[in-house]
C-alpha cells in the first residue's frame, strides 16, 4: 500500500524510469565494453566538469538565448497569422498551400543556404529557429481559431460587443488551449532546430560543443552534454505543460502532438 502511495506522487514515476534507464545504460556499457559507450556512472561523474566549465556554459547560454529570441519572434508573428487564417478563408486559402509545401522541408537543412545569404552570425541561427517554430504555431492557432464555437461569437454580437473586443474576449480565449498546445510543440521544435542547426553550421552553440567533443574523442563530455540537453528539453516541456494547464484548465484540447525532426 505504501509503495502504491509513493508511486502516485507526481515526480516519482519519471524519476524511477530515469533511474531504470541509467541502470540499463550501466549494464549495457559493461556488456558492450567499447570506448564509445562509457558507463553511466563515469558520465555522471564528468557532469560537473561540463556544467562548471565556463566556456561551455557560455555556449549553452548563448544557444538558449538565440532559441528564446527565435521563439519569441515566432510567437509574436505566427500566432496572429494563424488566428487570422482561422477566421478568414481567403487568408487561409493563400497561406495554407504554401505552408503545406514547406512543412516537409527540414528547417535546419536551410542553414547552409541561409548562412550563404545572411552570414554566419546570430541572425541566421535565430531565423532558422523562427522558421522551425512558426509552422506548428501557425497550424495550432489556425485550428484553435477555426474551432471557436460560432454560437459564442453570435452571443457576443447580440450583446453588442464590437469586433475588436470580440477578438480579445471571445476568440482569443477560445483558441487559447490549441494555441498553448502549439507553443508546447513549438518549444520542442525550437530546441530540435537549435541543436541540429548548430550541428550543421558548426560555429558555436551546444550542437557544436557536442561534435567538438566527438572529434576530440572526449567521449564522456559527449554523453554528459547529451544529458544536459536532455534535461533542458525535459524541463522546458514540463514548464510549458504546467503553464498551459494553468492558463487553460477549463479546456479540452486534441491529443498529444509530437514534435520531431526539424
Amino acid at each position, binding site marked *: 500500500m505504501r509503495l502504491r502511495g509513493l508511486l502516485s506522487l507526481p515526480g516519482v514515476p519519471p524519476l524511477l*524510469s*530515469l533511474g531504470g534507464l541509467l541502470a540499463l545504460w550501466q549494464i549495457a556499457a559493461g556488456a558492450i565494453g567499447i570506448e564509445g559507450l562509457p558507463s553511466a556512472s563515469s558520465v555522471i561523474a564528468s557532469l560537473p566538469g561540463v556544467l562548471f566549465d565556463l566556456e561551455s556554459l557560455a555556449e549553452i547560454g548563448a544557444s538558449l538565448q538565440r532559441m528564446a529570441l527565435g521563439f519569441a519572434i515566432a510567437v509574436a508573428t505566427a500566432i496572429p497569422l494563424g488566428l487570422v487564417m482561422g477566421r478568414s478563408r481567403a487568408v487561409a486559402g493563400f497561406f495554407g498551400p504554401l505552408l503545406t*509545401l514547406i512543412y516537409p522541408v527540414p528547417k535546419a537543412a*536551410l542553414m*547552409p*543556404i541561409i548562412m*550563404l545569404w545572411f552570414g554566419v552570425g546570430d541572425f541566421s541561427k535565430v531565423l532558422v529557429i523562427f522558421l522551425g517554430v512558426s509552422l506548428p504555431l501557425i497550424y495550432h492557432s489556425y485550428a484553435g481559431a477555426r474551432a471557436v464555437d460560432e454560437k459564442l461569437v453570435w452571443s457576443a454580437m447580440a450583446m453588442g460587443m464590437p469586433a475588436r473586443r470580440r477578438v480579445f474576449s471571445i476568440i482569443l480565449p477560445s483558441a487559447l488551449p490549441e494555441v498553448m498546445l502549439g507553443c508546447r510543440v513549438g518549444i520542442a521544435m525550437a530546441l530540435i532546430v537549435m541543436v541540429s542547426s548548430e550541428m550543421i553550421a558548426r560555429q558555436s552553440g551546444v550542437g557544436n560543443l557536442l561534435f567538438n567533443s566527438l572529434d576530440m574523442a572526449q567521449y564522456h563530455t559527449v554523453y554528459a552534454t547529451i544529458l544536459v540537453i536532455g534535461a533542458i528539453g525535459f524541463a522546458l516541456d514540463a514548464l510549458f505543460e504546467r503553464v498551459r494547464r494553468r492558463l487553460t484548465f477549463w479546456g479540452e484540447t486534441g491529443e498529444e502532438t509530437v514534435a*520531431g*525532426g*526539424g
Partner: protein
Amino acid sequence: MARALKLALLHLYPVALLLAAWEASVAAGLVRKILLPAPSAVFARLFELLQTAAFLEHVAQTLVRLSAGLAIATALGLALGLAAAASHPAGRMIQPLVRVLAPIPKIALYPALILILGFDHASKIALVAADAVFPILFATYHGARMVEPKLLWSARAAGTSPRACVFKIVLPAALPSILTGFRIALVISCVVVFLAEMISSTDGLGHLLIRAARAFRTVDMFVPLVTISLLGLALNALVAAGRRRLLAGYGEAR
C-alpha cells in the same frame, strides 16, 4: 474530373504565384543568381541529375536509411503501444519512460549513436527510428484505448481469448489512428535522415547539400532540398492511397 482539376488549381494558386514571382525576380536581376537560383534552373538541374547513376545512388541511400528506420519504428511503436494499452502493468512501465524520453531532442543523441554504431548506415537508421517511434507509439496507444468495449465483449462471447482479441479486434479498430501516426512518422523520418546526412555522412541527399555548399554551387544546394520534399510528398501520397484502401469498410470509425 474537371471539378477535381478546378479544386486542385484553387489550392495551388499561391504556390504557382510564389514560383512565378521567384522566377521573375531572378530573371529581372532583383536577386543575385548565385544566392537564389531561379526555380527553372533548380528543376532543370534536378531533371538532369535524375538521369545520372551517381545521383540516383545517393537518393537510394537516403531511401534505404529512411525505410529501415521507419520500419523499426513501426514495429517498436506498434508493439509498445499495444502492450501499454492492453496491459495495465505494461502501461505503467512504458508511460513514464515515454514521458522522460519524448521531450528530449533525439538529434542530440546522434553523436552517441555514432560512437556506438559507427559513422555509416546504422547510426542514421537508429536516429530515424528513435524519432519516428514516438508518433506511432502515441497513435497506437490512443487508438487502442479508444476501442469500444462492446466490440471486445462481442468477440469474447464468440469465443476469442483476451490475447487473441488484441490482434483480431484492437488492432483493426485502432488502424485509422495508427495510420495517422504513421504519416506523421513518415514526415519526421524524411526530415531526420536528411539532417543526419547533412551533419555527418559520406553519401545521401543531405550530404549532397553540404558538398554543394562547400563548393559554393547554389543550384546544387537547392536540388537535394527539393528532392527530399518531393520524396516526402510522394511517400505521403502513397500512404494516403494505402490508407484509403485499408480503411475502405470503416465508415464512422474513421
